[in-house]
């Protein structure tokens, strides 16, 4: 195997284009290295370490858009003041990834491109209607978040390209968002269920509702029918009950070593109820 460590995006893309047999992109390594160790990825596979490309990390706010570099670590997302103020669900999700060591090296780009059904950053991304900017054949190309995840460990990122950044519009005023995750323990957990919720109010009523979940289907997904039940409501019990019921119909959870499908189904409805409760407090809905 070879280990390549380009210092620029162009070098990285050059390396990718030269090799037909593929090159595994390595960022923080918190997934790739484990998959190699456990034999899910061949150990003979060469690695393209992009962690040395400095201009792919960091958070920038310009023209009403928040740009998150693909190599921004979970630790930096957790601590960034722009994220903390405008996209708290991203900060909350980053704070639940593994433990402090994982957060110190793991990146948002890695979390998304690895496309685990349990990716913690995926629900906030989907709920925020974010856009993924990839290197592209002839310059950067944009992929909407809801078209990015194609299946377990499969994304719309074209072969030979890399993810550059994530763009998220600054949410409107009177918006509340959060990421709620259930694991068996308080840290070091793969989500049994993760739910990102975002509610924007207009005239005291919910104008937009965004609900996205992970660990309940082969891909992270939006709960469109549940969202629809909440639009125009005050997140009152009646509307939330309908949304919770719909949410459980929109998902396709499985039994595995971590939890049963039936528990995951229960959790989605309850997390939705919890999000509504917290949002009513946060938005001071009477």
């Amino acid at each position, binding site marked *: 195997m070879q280990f390549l460590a380009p210092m620029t995006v162009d070098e990285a893309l050059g390396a990718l284009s030269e090799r037909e047999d593929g090159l595994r992109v390595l960022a923080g390594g918190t997934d790739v290295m*484990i998959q190699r160790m456990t034999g899910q990825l061949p150990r003979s596979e060469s690695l393209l370490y992009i962690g040395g490309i400095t201009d792919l990390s960091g958070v920038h706010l310009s023209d009403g858009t928040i740009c998150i570099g693909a190599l921004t670590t979970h630790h930096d997302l957790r601590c960034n003041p722009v994220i903390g103020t405008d996209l708290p669900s991203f900060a909350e999700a980053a704070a639940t990834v593994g433990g402090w060591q994982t957060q110190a090296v793991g990146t948002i780009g890695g979390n998304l491109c690895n496309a685990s059904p349990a990716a913690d950053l995926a629900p906030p991304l989907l709920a925020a209607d974010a856009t993924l900017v990839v290197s592209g054949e002839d310059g950067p190309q944009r992929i909407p978040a809801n078209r990015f995840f194609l299946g377990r460990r499969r994304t719309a990122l074209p072969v030979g390209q890399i993810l550059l950044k994530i763009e998220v519009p600054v949410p409107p005023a009177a918006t509340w968002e959060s990421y709620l995750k*259930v694991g068996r*323990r*308080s840290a*070091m957990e793969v989500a049994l269920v993760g739910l990102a919720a975002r509610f924007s109010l207009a005239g005291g009523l919910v104008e937009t509702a965004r609900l996205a979940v992970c660990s309940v289907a082969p891909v992270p997904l939006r709960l469109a029918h549940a969202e629809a039940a909440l639009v125009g409501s005050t997140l009152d019990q009646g509307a939330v009950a309908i949304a919770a019921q719909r949410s459980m119909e929109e998902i396709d959870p499985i039994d595995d070593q971590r939890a049963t499908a039936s*528990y995951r189904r*229960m959790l989605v409805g309850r*997390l939705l109820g919890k999000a509504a409760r917290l949002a009513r407090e946060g938005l001071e809905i009477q």
Partner: protein
Amino acid sequence: MTAVGPDTPRSDADAKVRGLANYGVDYREAGMLHARLLRSPVAAGRVTRLDVSTARSVPGVHAVVTAEQAPEHRNGLVLFDTPFFASDTVLYEGEPIAMVVADTPRQAQSAVDTIGLEIEEWEPISNVTEALAPDARLLHPDLDSYQILPGASSWPKSGNCGGVLTSDPGGVDEAFETADFIVEDTFTVPRQYQAYLEPKSATASYDGWRWTLHVSHQFPFQVRSRVAQALGVTDSRIRVVGHHMGGGFGARLDLGLEQYAAIGASLTGRTVQLVNDRTEDLISTMSRENATIKVRSGVTKEGRIVAREFECLMDGGAYAGDTVYLTSIPMFMVGSVYRVGPTRVTAKSVYTNTAPSGAFRGVSGTYICFALERHTDRLAEAIGMDRREFRLRNLFESGDSMLNGQTLEDADILREAFDRVEEVAPWSEAGKGSLKGVGLAATIWLTNPLAGSATLSIQQDGSLGVSTAATENGSGAVTMGVRQIAAAQFGLAAEQVFVTAPDTDTQGYDAGSQGSRTTHVVGMAVQAAAKQLKPRLFNIASGLLGALPDDLELSGGSVCVRDDPSRTVSLATVARTAFGLGGPLSATGAYNVPLPKWDPDSAEGLLFPVFPVPTYHVHLAEVEVDPDDGAVRVTRYVVAQEVGRMINPDGVYGQIQGGVAQGMGYALWEGLETKDGRYTRRTLESYGLPLAVDVPDVEIIILEHPCEAGPYGAKGAAEPPIVPVAAVIANAVSDATGANITSLPIDPEEVLLAIDKRREG
């Protein structure tokens, strides 16, 4: 000032914190080879092809070993049911089939990967129910012909049962007839992995006659006799040297990889090292056995327990290991702590196509206590009596006897423990509020009585060396307990005492770090050695000081004349003088705990007959349950533990905090479940060990009742704090939610459903 008491740091702390301590996996020798095992990928089947010819030709390979090169006879701890390598049949996933020895671990693994292995797979017998079915395939058709440990008395075994204990004193059925209510419960618990930090390893060399093994093991003398047994040679041809140990918790009491390293060394004539990777360690280690427990009790409406039946099916896995002994544990728990009337007990160690199970801190006691104390809550509920009041009404008193006929002379300590818990956490106020609850549980536990020895020698610089095969498993029993006891015997500071690593060639027997025995037993051996050594020391000092030996005493590293403290001679001078006279100033002491009386007719199959030097324990936990996900948060944890006397409070407190954390893991997150005979959780990432963020600071109440036959009054302390933890947490969760918790780890889904049911009701 005595070295026994607080503020004595452990002697290995600095080296361990700085990374200077060498563990078994760190051991290296020049020219050392590395081995890897081929383990069975399936739980059960017949080996139809084993072709190692390619493996032999892989570069760097020195030897490929299969059953053909290994001794044919079976070996075992007490029942000799285990082949060296599986050959015709494989009985569990992870069972060793072959081994490759090569220049590097990678070469060895590459060669293992080339071995042609074909197995005709059988439907595994994956649980005790399948194993005990009338037409079940027998894992050991030749069970009756297997040898047992010389000196062990035989015990009942048949079919897929490696051991059966039965106790029926008569009068049980009649006693049930006097009950107003009869309550029956069934409990199930999974396996628990010891999850020590250092994976198992062994390094062996061979000089043409004798083998030397370098290990991190709780019981070097057991390694010696078990490797000898497996190889079919006499004990003295094996030397075992101990190194720092990255945790054991019972998993390093029987053989791990030592016999394989040994045969690799004798076949190649080179030093051979074998180290488990984490997944093979997890799937092949003797973890705590899974079990199914049935308890049925009769109770009167006044709140007396009048009769009991108890049945326990322990899944011993493919080979019996020490579960044959563990079937005796119910005899010390089912009719202790509370008076329960005539009691019938059955316990079986059952063979299944799973990895052999075995010793884990609080052997079998964790789940027996869980079953009994959940059942105790259910009895109180059945008659509408307060749970604490019900316990106190049936509580053991001094002079009461356990089911084995052993009398507990000091069982009144239980009442004291309940009272002391009440002082800090009043029952009437505990666990109040929505989705909050409180649980209570009590137990007794033993101090393992097996023999130990120590050799003391005064060094020429006046310090004291302690040579013992006792092992420091991380608890501090050697680096604090034994060292402090030795220092106190000679009026030295603990810093002036060093303890050597175990070496079976040069030290007396020691039965290993198990059952909280080290501080107690080896401490007594140190005292016995000191008793011999002091007169000789005073004799020499007597000449140097011109005073009678009887007028001398030890103080601050010197010998002085009692009535004239100005006349002193340093221990260094005394020791140098002794060297000049032709020998070191040294003596060896040994000790084993005198066994209390028991009734040999109390049970059939009672291989482990008594609970010597018992200690008493009451735990209380308060929990809060999350209404959205059913997760259990332990908000308060109180332990009242009787220890005899604390040699080092930091050590005792640390063991209690750690035992509670390990018990919380068992109660809430851990557990090895099998599917088709294979463990489903196979890494520490998915296993679910307790985390610092989830474990509360334990409130600790120490009860000291110095033990007359104990070093400075000390009894065993380290093992038992794990025993009642699952019981109290389960009782608290049941109190908080109404869920009748009958299995571990506590299932948040079950908890949520119970919360819903209670709301609807």
